[in-house]
């Protein structure tokens, strides 16, 4: 076990270096970099007015773009290790502070999303494993499949149009995390207000994953139900409910739980589109605004921190699997 943990942690190093290289390539696209100038043609999309000239000078100074490549890379590696990404060009606040403010919003939103997705998909998957071939089951599977294909930003627009107080119903707020006066509310009231604000974004983020996850759950359950110990449990005369929900459930959850690792990037990086549409100040919207205003330190800080946190999360989830299922081969 200890050997496995050490090995897994050591494997972080090449991945970290890889991430640093990939983001370093991104720096070469920055305004002021010779590579970017070549890619854009001589003047290209960047107009040479005073403001852009200043941006170019700033990025040059920040990343040392006039230095040789290996010096630039060493400097970038130093920034990654110390998590020092400079100040945002827009408001001169440190990039790390801005990210520290945005990250909790995204984490909150996506933890709720994952919770909801699992709470809904797992029972659906079990149902479809135990009720294969019935008409209800076919209908549910079909409906989930259609949901899976609906573009999230389109659904968000329709929700805003029909439930967000346009010409039609005014049931949900369409932007922000809380109402303006929410700070004065009681804790319970504040929480309700927050959930009320998150309802529509949560819906847009969850519905697409039901089909995928419930399908996995169904496959896992079908596999488990074929095993000997389940037959034994049935032979003992336990009710079908106990067999399925207690005995078979635990083992068939394992493949579904291992999928969590794949959800991590979204958990930390956030959804650019949904956060932007609903004006939620999370990582996704921060990224979008950084890109829109060509705020280079913020762009780089955001990519780097999101990637590093995701890497940490991946390692953590890998280690957790071995706890969930001791049968997982180590090494």
């Amino acid at each position: 076990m200890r050997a496995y943990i050490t090995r897994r942690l050591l494997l972080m190093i090449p991945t970290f270096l890889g991430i640093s290289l990939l983001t370093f390539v991104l720096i070469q696209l920055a305004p002021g970099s010779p590579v970017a100038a070549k890619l854009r043609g001589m003047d290209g999309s960047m107009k040479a007015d005073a403001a852009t000239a200043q941006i170019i000078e700033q990025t040059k100074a920040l990343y040392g773009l006039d230095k040789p490549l290996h010096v630039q890379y060493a400097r970038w590696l130093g920034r990654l290790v110390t998590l020092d990404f400079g100040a945002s060009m827009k408001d001169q606040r440190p990039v790390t502070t801005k990210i520290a403010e945005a990250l909790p919003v995204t984490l909150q939103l996506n933890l709720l999303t994952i919770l909801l997705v699992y709470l809904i998909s797992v029972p659906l998957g079990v149902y479809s494993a135990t009720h294969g071939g019935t008409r209800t089951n076919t209908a549910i599977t079909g409906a989930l499949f259609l949901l899976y294909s609906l573009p999230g930003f389109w659904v968000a627009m329709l929700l805003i149009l029909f439930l967000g107080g346009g010409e039609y119903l005014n049931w949900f707020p369409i932007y922000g995390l809380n109402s303006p006066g929410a700070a004065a509310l009681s804790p319970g009231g504040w929480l309700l207000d927050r959930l009320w604000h998150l309802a529509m974004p949560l819906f847009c983020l969850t519905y697409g994953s039901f089909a995928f996850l419930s399908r996995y759950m169904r496959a896992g359950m079908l596999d488990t139900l074929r095993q000997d110990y389940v037959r034994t449990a049935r032979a003992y005369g336990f009710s079908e409910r106990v067999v399925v929900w207690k005995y078979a459930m635990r083992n068939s959850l394992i493949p579904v739980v291992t999928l969590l690792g794949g959800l991590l990037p979204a958990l930390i990086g956030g959804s650019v589109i949904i956060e932007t549409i609903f004006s939620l100040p999370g990582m996704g919207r921060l990224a979008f605004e950084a890109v829109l205003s060509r705020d280079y330190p913020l762009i780089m800080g955001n990519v780097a921190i999101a990637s590093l946190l995701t890497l940490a999360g991946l390692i953590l989830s890998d280690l957790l699997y071995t706890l969930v299922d001791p049968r997982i081969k180590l090494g």
Partner: protein
Amino acid sequence: MTEQEQQQRSAGYWRLVWRQYRRNRPALLGAALVLFFGALSLAAPFLANDTPLWLVKGGKTYPLPNVITYADLQAENLYNNFDRWRPGPGEYALWPPVPHGPLRQDLRARLAPPGPIHWFGTDDRGRDVLSRIIWGGRISMSVGFISVGIAVVVGVILGALAGYYGRWVDAAVLRLIEIWMCVPSFFLIITVMALLEPGIMNIMVVIGLTSWPGVARLVRGEFLKQKEMDYAAAARALGLGDGRVIFRHILPNAVSPVFVAATFGVAGAILTESGLSFLGFGVPPPTASWGEILKQSQSYVDFAWWLVLFPGIAIFLTVVAFNLVGDGLRDAMDPRLRQ
């Protein structure tokens, strides 16, 4: 794999797959929809255009002026102005079913609701929405297919090398996959799109280069399995080179899951492209794309429902179609379900 199965595979694997696929009605519907949208995109210049398909003017016949540029029509400045041309005696023009170009502005008919002239209404510059949707399909389809093509080429090569050679090659490719998993891909795409010159080629390349890891993982898994099989050992024992064993012997046996993943990938790439255009990082205006119409519609969402509904349905139907085909292929290629 038994001998008989092996034989079936070589004799008519695809026929077998098709026999199974045919039984799946939703998958057939999906395939029909894919063909329909594909045909619509291919035929866009003949379906939605403000230049006639056939023109008889001044005693001369001009076949297909919509694809062939005639110097004398050009000299009269008729291109782009065909809607103002009125046929004289003996003259006529045969128009496409949707006689509006995707870029043709009609400022007197701005934001017109669907009607007999503009079936799907017009946008804020008076451009015909139906025509823009038909032409936008070309963008969606080409981004879908080409970016997935890029992802498949990169993924197959890396996955095959990793699975076949194992050891440090495998370790390196696995690290590469992990790196790509960590970097938030949509954010990476918008960053690159914002910093590079906007253009459809860049979109295809960037989407393709962010979506290969799934393919690589699939191919790697297949290669790990296949390289242990007798036929692979036999090929090696015959003294064939690694390249030949990998691409001629193992790859054909490992390719089915790639087809399935690629079909789902097209749906995903179409969604990504429409999201990019929706945020303003897609193909540069005035080129029509589905996400771009939706982006416009945000300003008029309270009354111009046709700007929200029709492009949304176009995206939805295309994505459903590709997903249905992918689902059908997966079931048809699964030997456990075969009867």
